[in-house]
């Protein structure tokens, strides 16, 4: 009897050690430390209400970074997410006026998938580098958004969307439930499905993966399509939260989406990492922003500290290999 108990507890201990020792644990630790730091600066932050608020705001970045994580895992990058977000938001608010919110949501989802698919096709079949393709797409989307709105976005978010973004369910904000559900989806996709393994394979070495029989092109198009989808979903959430859409609303999310992924432990070259870390990365970025706001730094200081923190985190992870003959 005693031995059995001892075995069970040692299995538990070894599992616990595995979880705590995982690279992702470092990121979560940093996230907690930063949160505590923010609380020390502003004691009001040590409240359940604030944590809820924090997680809701971080969820917008978190959902956007889902697609970015997938794309970066394949060794690419998606610079069009900020305007995909914007376009999704304006379509939502403007279409609701005339065609109703259901038609609007369906359109937004289709548009998001379409944007991503076009990105993927340009990257795979036209052989355009992801950086350049998504950059060009970003310019195109910016124009489309401006033309569609005629310069001023109209309309407001429908009530049901505002409820999702602002109300609570069972004590936790619905937005956080949404983020949680989507996170589970993405993490399961990456870790338990074949597609997930293919994504990692392409990121590790896309020549080898192609020779192994993986249809790189299809997987890549899917990954970019998902990135477009998550971008518009994020746009919907933000619109629901603020009630409106406006031009340029995605700009402040673009670089942080990349930073969140990298801080979360995913290698920018692809093949390593995952969304679990990105979640913590998104929260870290948001907490960092709140700390900078508390310290009442002017724009100059904020930029400098933002950049320095990212560098600091990168250096901490330092996984470069020394060149040896």
């Amino acid at each position, binding site marked *: 009897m005693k031995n059995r108990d001892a075995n069970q507890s040692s299995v538990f201990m070894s599992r616990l050690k595995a979880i705590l020792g995982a690279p992702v644990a470092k990121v979560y630790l940093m996230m907690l430390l930063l949160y505590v730091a923010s609380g020390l600066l502003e004691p009001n932050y040590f409240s359940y209400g604030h944590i809820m608020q924090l997680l809701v705001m971080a969820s917008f970045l978190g959902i956007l970074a889902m697609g970015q994580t997938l794309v970066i895992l394949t060794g690419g*990058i998606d*610079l069009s997410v900020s305007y995909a977000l914007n376009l999704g938001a304006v379509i939502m608010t403007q279409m609701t006026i005339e065609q109703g919110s259901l038609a609007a949501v369906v359109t937004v989802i289709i548009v998001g998938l379409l944007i991503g698919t076009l990105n993927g096709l*340009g990257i795979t*079949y*036209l*052989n*355009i*580098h992801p*950086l*350049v*393709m998504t*950059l*060009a*797409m*970003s*310019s*195109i*989307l*910016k*124009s*489309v958004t*401006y*033309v569609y709105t005629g*310069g001023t976005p109209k309309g407001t978010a429908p009530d049901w969307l505002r409820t999702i973004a602002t109300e609570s369910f069972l004590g936790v904000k619905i937005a956080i439930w949404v983020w949680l559900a989507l996170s589970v989806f993405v993490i399961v996709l990456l870790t338990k499905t074949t597609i997930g393994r293919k994504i990692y394979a392409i990121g590790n070495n896309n020549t080898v993966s192609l020779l192994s029989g993986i249809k790189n092109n299809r997987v890549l198009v899917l990954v970019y399509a998902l990135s477009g989808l998550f971008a518009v979903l994020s746009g919907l959430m933000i619109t629901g939260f603020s009630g409106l859409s406006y031009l340029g609303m995605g700009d402040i999310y673009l*670089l942080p989406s*990349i*930073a969140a992924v*990298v801080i979360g432990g995913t*290698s*920018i*070259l692809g093949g390593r990492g995952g969304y679990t870390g990105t979640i913590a990365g998104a929260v870290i970025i948001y907490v960092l922003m709140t700390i900078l706001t508390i310290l009442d730094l*002017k*724009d*100059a*200081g*904020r*930029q*400098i*500290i*933002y*950049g*320095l923190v*990212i*560098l600091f985190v*990168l*250096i901490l992870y*330092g*996984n*470069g*290999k*020394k*060149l040896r*003959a």
Partner: protein
Amino acid sequence: MRRLESLRGKRMAVKRKKTTIFIRRNRDTLIAYGIMLVVLVLFAANQNDFFTRYGPQSIFNQMITLAIAALAQTLVVLTSGIDLSVGAMIGLTNSIAATIMDPMAQFAGGKLAGVLLTMVIVLATGALAGFLNGLIIVFFRLQPIIVTLATASVFTGIALYIRPTPGGKVPYEYTQFFAGRLFGYIPSSAVVLAFFIFAVWIPLRRSRLGQSIYAIGGGEYSAFVTGIDVNRTKLWVYTLSGLFSACAGLLLTAQTASGDPLGSELFTLNSIAAVVLGGTALTGGKGGYVGSVAGAVILSLVLGLLIFWGVPSFYQNGVQGIILILALSVGVLQKLWKKRKAITD
């Protein structure tokens, strides 16, 4: 029986072969120059005073800042890296230049001395910023894309600290010298461009540093085992990127006669687009600055064209994006067309 060729015939055959090789190797760059010629013709057709003295000046002025930024980016991309802080460095140097040029005149006792001193300080700042980039990338063995992303933030922050709002004072003579004409006829920007192509790029390309840069782009490990000092080369590349970004910043100061810490963000992505358009692959080792110049001209002039044609500003971004995609597809479509021909023949 093989036909005996005369000596002259043989020479011509060798020349033909050399031409073929040249075209094949530089195919993407030649495509870029082809597109550039088309854009130039369209530009000339639309600007009424193109063939007067002002035509060339406006072209060169419009593209010179991007052209120099593209030089900075070309060097980095050739080593298969990327520098996302180019725009921020231009903004930083632009802000510093516009802020200190006037005080420096008083400090150094004369406008010319002040301007020269400012230029030295600005160039040193740029080189230092680039050196920091290189230092972090080389010593901590981190990926350039994310390091330069972070340092871009830092540089912009410093620029905002030095120059919280756009402005600053720039002596009229300075703007005239760099944005005007020399000897009353030749646009200064053209001279600057010629300088950077012939006195900077070509010697650099033939130097050992240049060879090392191409070697690293072709394969870092291979370059390393060949005995090339990869670390030192990379440090040089990023430092030079900073130095050239500072040059672009000085030129921007001459053109806008003010400093704007946030106004240079577009240069980063446009410099990458110019480099890629010009035939240099982002994977490195192939291409060169000659192509990037064509890329810079294309990007700068297309915007001017759109303005001529009265395309509403709403559409301008999108059209630029589409043109970028189309220009890059030309190479791919050409390959597909060749394949088709081979199959159906």
